[in-house]
């Protein structure tokens, strides 16, 4: 039950870190998976004919690490502070990030 308080902080940090690492690719891409060979490599190597590389697993890992970090910080905050934080952030953040995501991915749909 003690860990429950970390859940909202985990979610918010996970989603922000995931989108940031995706948008800032390759700067925050920690590792690459090469589906043709099944190899995992650190960073973003030039796979040449062995490509394409997959970065999704790295972005998920980054999001998870950020979520765990934020969750740990949330557990350190005194309980009296909880009531001062608006619970609506847990739905505002995904809505805003989804709009940002659609903007980032607009070029796939012929939009400039």
């Amino acid at each position: 039950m003690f860990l429950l308080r970390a859940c909202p902080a985990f979610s918010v940090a996970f989603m922000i870190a995931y989108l940031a690492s995706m948008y800032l690719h390759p700067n925050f891409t920690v590792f690459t998976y090469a589906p043709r060979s099944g190899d995992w490599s650190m960073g973003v190597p030039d796979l040449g004919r062995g490509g394409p590389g997959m970065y999704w697993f790295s972005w998920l890992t980054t999001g998870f690490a950020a979520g765990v970090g934020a969750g740990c910080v949330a557990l350190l905050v005194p309980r009296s502070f909880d009531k001062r934080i608006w619970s609506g952030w847990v739905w505002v953040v995904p809505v805003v990030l989804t709009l940002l995501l659609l903007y980032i991915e607009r070029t796939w749909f012929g939009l400039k």
Partner: protein
Amino acid sequence: MLTFLFVMHGLLAIALLGAITHQAVAVWLPSRSADRHFMGRFRAVKAASYTNAIIVLFLLTFALGAVVYPTYRIGARVFMENLRMGAAVGSFEVKEHLVSFALGLLPTYWFFWRQPLDPRHVWTRKLVVLILTLFVWAGFLVGHILNNIRGV
């Protein structure tokens, strides 16, 4: 084996879609009386009882999706790229990110939907399940349409 996993991914996604749609409809359009019609009964379910099933179904569907994803990346996606089907490829990109957001949102979903339900967070609960439902529907529809374009 891969075909089996892909079919399981699809079947679990349908089960997840049914469960989360039930919960979302029950909480957004609750039935006010004992209705004998199908839609009335559909809306009259006890929404909170779906929470754990939704979490388990989501995790299983997500895990199977992650297993079959590399095959899509070197097969169906390359096929669509060669045909310059940018919107189709982009749709999968959006799906990939939305289901990742949904994965991140899952602990919060559980936090607000665990029983006994906290009456202070009614709107947060309603909006979180709505967002999760939209993400799941988007993922399902994109996956289904892309599979019709080029199956894994």
